[in-house]
């Protein structure tokens, strides 16, 4: 993916990755059904690449575990993400990448809501509305160039 010469946010604040979660005995037991919790959702999205910087969404504090709300019993997931700057033009793309990662990883029963942390973006209503419109999301993902960009955000990096 070509990196634009002019970055919108050339000197982002970088945050430290949190430690890996230690496994409990219950989680290692094959017979116990694991409820999906906030940490598991966070683990799915923390390593998504930012489209502009060679950093993950976790390292840029765009996603935080505290902004993930899961209810396994009701099959709902809510993720708030914080663009690094209020006029970030990548906000929709970042939101879409988070949504696609979760759509591909979670059981079909889950209802996934991805929206911007309130008060952190100039066009948050417009971005949130697009992300909430599954028809718009489906059509966007049929656009091969956009799909390619999303897949690059979702590709794993060798650290």
């Amino acid at each position, binding site marked *: 993916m070509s990196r634009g010469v002019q970055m919108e946010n050339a000197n982002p604040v970088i945050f430290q990755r949190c430690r890996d979660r230690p496994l409990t005995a219950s989680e290692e037991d094959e017979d116990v059904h694991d409820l999906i919790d906030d940490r598991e959702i966070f683990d799915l999205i923390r390593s998504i690449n930012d489209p502009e910087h060679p950093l993950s969404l976790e390292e840029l504090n765009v996603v935080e575990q505290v902004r993930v709300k899961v209810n396994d019993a009701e099959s709902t997931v809510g993720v708030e993400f914080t663009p690094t700057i209020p006029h970030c033009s990548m906000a929709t793309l970042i939101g879409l990448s988070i949504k696609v990662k979760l759509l591909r990883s979670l059981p*079909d*029963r889950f*209802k996934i809501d991805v929206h911007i942390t309130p008060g952190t973006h100039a066009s948050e209503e417009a971005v949130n*509305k697009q992300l*909430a*419109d*599954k*028809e*718009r999301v*489906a*059509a966007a993902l*049929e656009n091969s160039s956009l799909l390619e960009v999303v897949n690059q955000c979702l590709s794993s990096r060798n650290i």
Partner: protein
Amino acid sequence: HQAALRLLGQGGGSSSSPATRLSAHPDSRCWFVAWSPNGTLLASCGGDKAIRIWGREGDSWVCKSVLEDGHQRTVRKVAWSPCGNYLASASFDATTCIWKKNNEGFESLTVLEGHENEVKCVAWAPSGNLLATCSRDKSVWIWEVDEEDEYECVTVLNSHTQDVKHVAWHPTRELLASASYDNNICIYKEEDDDWECRATLEGHTSTVWSLCFDATGQRMASCSDDRTVKIWKEYPSESGDTSWKCVCTLSGYHGRTVYDVSWCPLTGALATACGDDAVRVFREDVTSNPEEPVFSLVAQVTKAHNQDVNCASWNPKEAGILASCSDNGELAIWRFKED
């Protein structure tokens, strides 16, 4: 008021239950289902770019035809011509395909181009001579079809400021309604050979996904991402024009976006398709004031499908038969029974 909504064939006491839950578009979404005008066939369309035609054989529903290679992307909606001999399909590939029935199935007759991006809906006027399409390009197009099956765009209407999700024709008059991501509904009429937007109906607080007229066309139901269904009634005004007012709002029933609403022309029952996986049926209270109607929820299936329900469609000839379809690619046929 006792009523029930069950999968067709179940609850009747017979041990065999025919397949009324069909895997219509495997590994894909089923976006829409439409009954043929005589009620014997059901067309479904989906994310696999195909259209399937289903018919009853004895107690089961079988796939009679598969219409593939007509579109390069998702087929979002399909519509039958009033005579039942043609099918129109609206696709994310920005085209509308017209199919003609032949002995083996359907053949592609022509492809209507012009929209700049995804076509979200196509609808035939009751006369059979006009077709309406709408798109994410914010426009509504009206096409005329002549005796030689030639289609010509007669007008492009730009009344919405955002993606247009649905268009529906009035059952008896040449009047068209459109629903949009801009949260509004527009009503269009022809005057002196010119189609114009005659009214903009505001009220919904988010995207209006679908709308439909009742049997007489005096009322219209709309459904929205705001999780409500609104009932609109037409009032003539002194200038000879008409205005539409919202006379009822059904709120608190739907847990998520309401994607479709269908008004049964035979019974007056109102069915909804919702993102909370449920199918619901509402009925107007007989005693309610027509200027302020009251609708009650009379039946629901909370897990009609295990994913979002995208469409609900009443059979136009057989009272109480309802088809629905879902993000899981399934199509289901229900019987609504009242005591």
